[in-house]
């Protein structure tokens, strides 16, 4: 990172451009842009409870993006966070539902572990296929996302079914209140502590550990890494397992936290937004945390906006899409080579 300012500008210019284009479209469609801006501010920051809502969405985004940072730095395109998140939720819901009589001190760690293992396994499938069979991870993680959705659908309409729910809202029964880490607000001391620990762990791993250095070398110049005698396959597999573990942990926190159960159609865009968060955060842990707060606020605003303006919430999806479309483009100066910007054609 040659200059912190230039680097931040690199992330801020596409975001500003995305907002400008989005709001131009809103104005052209006849919406009151000032009212929409005010609604955004209220929904993300100012209205009562809105900061809490922003934080509620920032927490899972932050955790998932930590895993994505690790994979993108290694040059791997694991875009399966969405599926890993869902399977993590499945791993997490098992212990509270199957062992309801055990004390929370045992069940909650089991559930967290279940989530982490679930996510890591799901990601590990794509990783193992890539490393040992040279199978394309982009298509495989995409496919695993769809399989995960169907798998969850089967669990919530079959073995773990709660009879009062159906369709998009089909879900498992609610887990016992004693196993919950937060109420439906999704913000609690327990959740915050877990996210802080996860972020510290990721920061140490990425910035201060041999693994972090090695994986970055593997991502930026695989040949040099091979000459150095690094065990590239092992690093790749570890990368996938870690990314899945973070996504799975986020899925577990969703189940033990705000949701309290596993829902079929839950958080359909979280895994994708987390990729944008990681890139906007320039593949660094502090940057990703800031970006997670920003996109958490945007998500909170999406849910709030219909209350104050008639702008459909899909309008903000447009801005999110524009950010992703523009964020890796080199507008003014040449980007430093990093793993996210290297196309692998």
């Amino acid at each position, binding site marked *: 990172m040659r200059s912190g300012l230039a680097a931040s500008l690199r992330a801020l210019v596409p975001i500003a451009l995305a907002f400008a284009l989005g709001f131009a479209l809103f104005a052209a469609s006849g919406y009151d842009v000032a009212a929409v801006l005010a609604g955004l501010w209220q929904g993300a920051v100012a209205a009562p409870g809105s900061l809490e809502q922003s934080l509620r969405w920032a927490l899972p985004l932050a955790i998932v993006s930590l895993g994505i940072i690790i994979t993108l730095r290694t040059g791997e*395109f694991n875009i399966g966070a969405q599926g890993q998140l869902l399977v993590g939720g499945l791993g997490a819901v098992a212990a509270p539902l199957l062992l309801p009589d055990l004390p929370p001190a045992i069940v909650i760690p089991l559930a967290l572990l279940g989530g982490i293992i679930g996510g890591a396994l799901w990601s590990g499938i794509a990783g193992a*296929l890539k490393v040992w069979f040279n199978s*394309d991870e982009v*298509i495989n993680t*995409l496919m695993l996302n*769809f399989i995960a959705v169907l798998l969850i659908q089967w669990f919530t309409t079959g073995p773990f079914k709660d009879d009062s729910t159906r369709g998009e809202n089909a879900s498992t029964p609610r887990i016992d209140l004693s196993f919950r880490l937060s109420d439906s607000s999704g913000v609690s001391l327990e959740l915050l502590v877990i996210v802080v620990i996860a972020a510290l762990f990721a920061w140490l791993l990425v910035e201060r550990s041999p693994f972090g250095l090695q994986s970055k070398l593997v991502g930026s110049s695989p040949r040099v890494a091979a000459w150095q005698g690094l065990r590239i396959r092992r690093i790749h597999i570890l990368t996938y397992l870690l990314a899945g573990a973070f996504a799975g942990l986020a899925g577990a926190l969703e189940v033990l936290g705000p949701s309290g159960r596993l829902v079929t159609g839950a958080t359909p865009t979280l895994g994708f937004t987390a990729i944008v968060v990681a890139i906007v955060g320039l593949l660094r842990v502090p940057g990703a945390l800031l970006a997670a707060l920003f996109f958490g606020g945007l998500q909170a605003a999406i849910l709030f906006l219909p209350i104050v303006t008639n702008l*459909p919430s899909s309008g903000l999806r447009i801005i*999110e899409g524009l950010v992703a479309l523009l964020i890796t483009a080199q507008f003014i100066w040449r*980007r430093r080579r990093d793993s996210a910007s290297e196309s692998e054609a």
Partner: protein
Amino acid sequence: MEQFVVTTIRLSVPLIFAGLGGLFSVRAGIFHIGIEGLMLAGAFVTVAIGSALGSVWLGIGGAIAVNLLLSWVYWFLIDRLKADMIIAGLGLTTLCVGGTAFLMSAFFNKRGSMTSQVRLPQPVVGPQEGLLAYVSELSLLAWLLPLFVLIVWLLLRRSRLGLQLAAIGEYPYAAEAAGVNISRSKLYAMLITGICCALAGAELAVGGLAAFSENMTNGRGFIALAAILFGSLDPIRTTLAGLFFGLANAVGINSQIYAGASNVPRQFILMLPFAATIFFVTLRGYASGRNAPRVS
């Protein structure tokens, strides 16, 4: 049985249009994740313009125009501004998911879904009753599919662009040395992808249903991409892969209708195309060895 065959064809047609269109981009070395979004844009614009102007052809024309524009933007970003094709492709898809829902709400005041005032003609009228009655459900685009496959095959195997694309995909440096303008070939390939995705979206929205609903592609673009890999970047095999995915989808839908006919939960049948894709992509990756050029 005939109904089952017709259902399979109807589910396959959008996949094959998008798959064969995407084939041009993939052959040019672009792993075009935005196909999903382009299909959705095609479906929406066909319904929106078609309904507003009262002509399905103007609707499809508009869809093609919009997709050409979006494809050009995507090309400009990844070729000229060196944006990452996967991230930008995901962005393009999200933009289309949000954009179609937004415009439907802003200009038609509809949330969730809207009905179309126009639909594609269904040129062959089968008997009113009996097993063959279902063929009358097939749209004009479905009947034109064989011709479309032939055109794509000719374009890829016999045209200058097709041969250039093959060269770019196999040996980009040799192609460049031989004077192929790689940038321009990529642009043409992506524009063709855009046109085909507009047709795929039109078939999806006005081929049978005559309606548009939010996110109605629901992953079909990604499946089309999988069909390309499944078909080893070959037009005929991509078509067959599209039919196979349509078949798996039809089996999933029918097992829902004929509940009890099988004990396998329908979710597992619906997983088949995705699992088969992973299996086949892996097989192909393994066979191609560690030093082969990557698709993405």
